[in-house]
């Protein structure tokens, strides 16, 4: 039993090191291609773009979201904004209606049917060649659209461009931790973009060529992760997805552990189930790095985190058991004898060095992601918050998502 466990442990460590190494090498290969354009840029042509904003009970954030769209540095007559109220029960419709006077804003009201139905209602009315969506809890930076559109201008084969999503005004440790995570997400997404292997076209401001939906059909429920499902579908059909690192979108992130937990449970559940639905793609070389790297990486992460968590629980149980035995035998004693071992008892198993290596590369990825967003090198405390908080919580929602998949229980949005 311990032999099997040891082999499994080493295999998982090997794969984790492999994945981080793969990202790192991809970075070294492409580092010169990562540029941040600080000055306003010009396009030869400004194609018309429709941005769909699905909202459900977002009266508090919708104003700023639409305002940021109206303030985009892009010709006003080239942007259409669709505000779609998906049967909100609060004042969202009133907030949305305030914008109906703008010539390029259209408002829609429908029965509640879920985010993907709101998006599809928008898609039915789109007349432009480009379409994007913006979650109603996110704010775009003024230069984002023109920077994204430059990717389409550069390459006719690019079918979707995802932005760099970061955290809007982090107020507490939980949001600070997510800030570090989102920075890592920027790095990861850029690398996956180079590999042609992006697996999520995020709800906040990914822009598509309209033909994607004309050819592949509208959004699907996708286990409440419709932005992941559409990316899987595009990858399956060899549609190119890019990442524009200097197009910034700020999104409101969960402010409490409970909310974060629910969000992540939904994401991981979506990943597991979309991957199961698209299992025919896995390891098939005709689907490229998406099939050989992105999906396996997700599976490896889930396995590694779950396994390590199990191991941790086992060790903790063992420790508690020994302590109980010890207390039962000699009573409470604050023995100093264990301290005598000091550095001698420092763990020097090979895996220890490899884990330190993996963590170093993770920190490197966070720092680099931040560099891509802010243009400067920063080491900050939020990395520590991230590593600590997610170390504890991630296994829980992972295991919960696996459990829900097994008993096929669908997670709630909120």
């Amino acid at each position, binding site marked *: 039993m311990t032999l099997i466990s040891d082999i499994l442990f080493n295999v998982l460590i*090997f794969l984790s*090191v*492999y994945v981080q*190494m*793969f990202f790192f*090498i*991809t970075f070294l*290969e492409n580092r010169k291609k990562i540029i941040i354009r600080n000055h306003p840029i010009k396009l030869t042509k400004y194609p018309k773009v429709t941005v769909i904003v699905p909202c459900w009970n977002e009266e508090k954030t919708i104003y700023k979201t639409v305002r940021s769209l109206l303030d985009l540095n892009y010709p006003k007559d080239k942007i259409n904004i669709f505000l779609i109220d998906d049967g909100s029960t609060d004042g969202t419709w009133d907030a949305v209606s305030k914008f109906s006077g703008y010539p390029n804003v259209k408002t829609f009201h429908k029965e509640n049917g879920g985010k993907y139905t709101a998006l599809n209602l928008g898609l039915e009315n789109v007349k432009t060649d480009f379409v994007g969506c913006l979650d109603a809890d996110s704010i775009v930076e003024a230069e984002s659209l023109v920077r994204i559109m430059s990717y389409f201008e550069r390459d006719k084969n690019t079918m979707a461009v995802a932005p760099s999503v970061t955290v809007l005004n982090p107020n507490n440790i939980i949001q600070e931790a997510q800030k570090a995570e989102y920075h890592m997400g920027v790095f990861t997404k850029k690398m996956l973009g180079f590999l*042609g292997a992006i697996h999520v076209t995020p709800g906040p401001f990914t822009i598509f060529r309209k033909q994607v939906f004309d050819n592949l059909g509208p959004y699907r429920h996708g286990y409440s992760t419709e932005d992941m499902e559409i990316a899987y579908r595009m990858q399956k059909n*060899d549609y190119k997805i890019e990442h524009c690192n200097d197009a910034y979108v700020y999104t409101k992130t969960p402010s409490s552990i409970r909310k974060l937990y629910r969000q992540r449970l939904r994401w991981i559940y979506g990943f597991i189930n979309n991957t199961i639905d698209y299992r025919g793609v896995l390891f098939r*070389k*005709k*689907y*490229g*790095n998406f099939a*050989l790297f992105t999906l396996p990486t997700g599976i490896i992460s889930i396995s590694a985190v779950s396994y390590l968590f199990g191991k941790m629980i086992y060790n903790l149980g063992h420790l508690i058991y020994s302590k109980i*035995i*010890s207390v039962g*035998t*000699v009573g409470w*004693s604050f*023995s*100093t*004898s264990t301290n*005598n*071992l000091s550095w*001698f*008892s*420092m*763990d*020097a*198993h*090979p*895996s*220890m*060095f*490899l884990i330190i*290596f993996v963590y170093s590369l993770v920190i490197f990825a966070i720092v680099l992601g931040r560099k891509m967003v802010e243009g400067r090198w920063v080491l900050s405390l939020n990395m520590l918050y991230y590593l600590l908080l997610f170390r504890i919580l991630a296994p829980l929602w992972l295991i919960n998502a696996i459990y829900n998949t097994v008993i096929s229980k669908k997670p709630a949005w909120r």
Partner: protein
Amino acid sequence: MNDKIDWKKYLIVFLFTVGLFFSASYASNYFGDKKINQLKSIQEGISIDILSSETQFSLLADLSCKNISYSVLSGELGELGNKLEWSEKNLGKADTVSYLKKYYSLLQIKDYLLTKKISERCKTKAAFILYFYTTKENCSECEREGLVLSALREKYPELRVYSFDYSIDLSAVRSMLQIYKIEDTKLPALVIDDDVLTGFREMEELESIIKKSFKLEEAKSVEETESKELP
């Protein structure tokens, strides 16, 4: 898409990862060796101390106890024991560790004999416990007995506990097993003042035995000083 897969990169990353694995093993081995060396140097130190005291003891056989300095503390041997125990569990260098363990057992026996002699002649306060244990699978109570002994050793610094692995392949230990007629079915076994106690013994029971042992020593030493003072 097929042409987009950079197989060379997959291979290079694989080789890098394998390289890292080897480097990690190398580093681990390096620290393992350092620890073994530390163990060896501690043992050397203790060994020299014991040898020197033995020699001194023989030289000064008829002289006053004041001149005998014996510096091996029971803590030092105990710490070495702890480190060896940890190494056995974690280091994975089975051969070297088992060799060191034999050496450690020998040092314990020598320390026992010497300290006992010094204490008898010079009337220093001391009590001795010889403890025989074996693996967890064959002795469910050994772990708890070990805890009791560690706690006792902390409470009474003058108490010297010597622990011996029943299954160790060392003739000196086997002789002790024969002398005290220790059987592997009756472990844990303790020897205090030549009495053999088998099975798990509570802290309180051992404590009272040790105190008695200390009192005997004290009584003896008081007697002797008194008899010396008389003309």
